[in-house]
């Protein structure tokens, strides 16, 4: 496990959120099947799956030659109940406020 990976950074990406959602409704899928759901190159999807696995949002299940991915529900719950998404929302809004008012000052 790579502890440098931040789950909040992981869910900030819309494709990765879409992967989580896909797995939330399909339970377990192989990387190949996940990739067919997206307009993105297979290696890019593999990278997304790697990031999601490294931050513990996904678990890998080896069945024969195939690797299946499944959501780690406990970790998802921890992320969902944490303050970070709420803080990020306000951070982004306040960054915009600052930019808007700096522009306003000079006009």
């Amino acid at each position, binding site marked *: 496990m790579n502890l440098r990976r931040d789950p909040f950074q992981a*869910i900030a990406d*819309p494709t990765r*959120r*879409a992967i*989580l*959602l*896909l797995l939330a409704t399909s339970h377990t899928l192989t990387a190949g099947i996940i990739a*067919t*759901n*997206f*307009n993105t190159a297979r290696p890019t999807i593999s990278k997304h799956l790697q990031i999601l696995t490294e931050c513990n949002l996904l678990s890998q299940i080896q069945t024969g030659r195939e690797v299946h991915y499944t959501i780690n529900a406990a970790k998802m719950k921890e*992320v*969902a*109940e944490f*303050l970070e*998404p*709420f*803080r*990020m*929302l*306000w*951070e982004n*809004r*306040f*960054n*915009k*406020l*600052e*930019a*808007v*008012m*700096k522009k*306003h*000052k000079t006009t």
Partner: protein
Amino acid sequence: MEQKTQVHAPEGKQEIFITRQFDLPVNLLFKAYADADLFAEWMSTQVVAWENKNLGYYRFETKDEAGNTLISANGTIHLTITNQKIIRTFQIENTLFEPQLEFLDFESLSPATSKLSIQIIFRSLALRDQLLKLPFTYGLNMALNRLQTILSKHKIL
């Protein structure tokens, strides 16, 4: 990146504290909250009612690209003191959320910097925790919409 915005939600208390320092003089920070056009711009919303005065009110609607209303919210302004304070309520419409009470304190730190401290008080702890979860839920809804678009393009749905 440095975290300029701090959120504090004390355990077991129906309150949220949000603080942020700005590279703006306090009068510009306050103006971002007092001027309807500027508020609409930084909140990426449309102001539909705005009486920024003591015992005043406000209402805004946020729409998606297709013009569907994503969120509408309103509140009454109890007190406003220029460059110092706004006390108001806030309620998201058409949801189970009840109005929340907000104290906004504006503080000058230097001629070029300022600080905003927001204290939000909810009717219950459960309502506070529900609001904290909103951005995540909203993010997943956005992902769901995107997923549906992708899947329907591939004729999977």
